[in-house]
């Protein structure tokens, strides 16, 4: 009699254990759910396409980049402006291109213009879609190992530190007279 009763109690215990296991499985399904495919794809593609478009973009003619004809009337950001900035990085005040900033409206040194332009364009796109981002442009001078910031990093919404889930555009290296300039854009939610 006692043995039968304990057997029934064992069955009850097994049922409870089973119920708890099923509950745990449900919880695990919820917890281990990965980011949707779209989110990852969009972030990766968006970071690449944004930097690619930024590098290709040309400065408008009204920005008066050159007072007398010395270079292109509409210099390309990823080629002419970055090259000019790298070349005259340490020359305080002087640069071949002095374009009007899209926000300040003043004619700026190519490095200052680059920073203002990047901040403006990124804010108008990624910023308006509530994305956090970080743009770095670093100069690696020939025969030197440590890269130095060409411009101050453009950071919005707290940036994308390493511990955050982030995607990078990949390096966009540009060969200039002053050395190699590496550009990278990090994007996170």
């Amino acid at each position, binding site marked *: 009699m006692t043995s039968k009763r304990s057997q029934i109690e064992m069955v009850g215990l097994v049922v409870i254990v089973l*119920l708890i296991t099923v509950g745990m499985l*449900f919880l695990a399904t919820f917890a281990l759910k990965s980011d*949707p*495919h*779209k*989110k990852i*794809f*969009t972030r990766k*593609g*968006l970071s*690449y*396409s*944004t930097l*690619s*478009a*930024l590098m*290709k*973009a*040309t400065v*408008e*003619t*009204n920005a008066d980049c050159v007072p007398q004809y010395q270079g*292109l*009337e*509409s210099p*390309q950001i990823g080629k002419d402006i970055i090259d000019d900035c790298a070349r005259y990085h340490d020359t305080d005040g002087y640069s071949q291109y002095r374009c009007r900033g*899209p926000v300040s409206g003043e004619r700026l040194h190519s490095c200052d213009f680059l920073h203002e332009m990047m901040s*403006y*364009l990124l804010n*108008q*796109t*990624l910023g308006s*879609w509530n994305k956090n981002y970080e743009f770095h442009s670093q100069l690696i001078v020939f025969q030197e190992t440590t890269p130095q910031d060409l411009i101050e990093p453009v950071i919005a919404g707290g940036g994308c530190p390493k511990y955050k889930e982030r995607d990078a555009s990949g390096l966009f290296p540009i060969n200039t007279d002053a050395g190699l300039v590496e550009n990278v854009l990090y994007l996170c939610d």
Partner: protein
Amino acid sequence: MKRSTLPYGLRRNRKAQIQMSETIAVLFIFFVLIFFGIIFYYKYQQVSFQEKQEELLGTRAIETTLKTLFLPELICSKGEAESEDNCVDMLKLRSLNETIKQYLDDYYFEIFSYARIYVQEVYPGNSTFILYDKQKPDATREEPTFFVVTLRDEIAGKGQELHKFGYLAVVVYS
């Protein structure tokens, strides 16, 4: 020890009654648990169904965006050279709206289904080019996807090819 004054038959009956109510209580609790389980499972199914729908809509948004980005009617090309990615040709862009309108139902609807596609210029101007607009009458959800592109303009610059900055927006409906 005090012995029960009730007759033996009545005592057995009472014990059986107690056991019966115990069984009923256990069964009640069991069915309550089953009921909660069914409710939980129903809610879970409802949520996963919605998630699946969202996932499908997201996939469609990606597909539509990719189709638009690589649309020969829009992408930057130069003769037989390989076309430039993330680039929209302004010359094509200016006339595409009319072409799409003309062949919307018999060609473009099959490609884009219910969607709204437009190109927004950010720098230097702020023009909007609506390429495709077919709204779903009973749409309950919409999914926007943005891609930054460069807008190549060969006629704006004085002999120089200009690359404007903008983005492509694709909104899909379900």
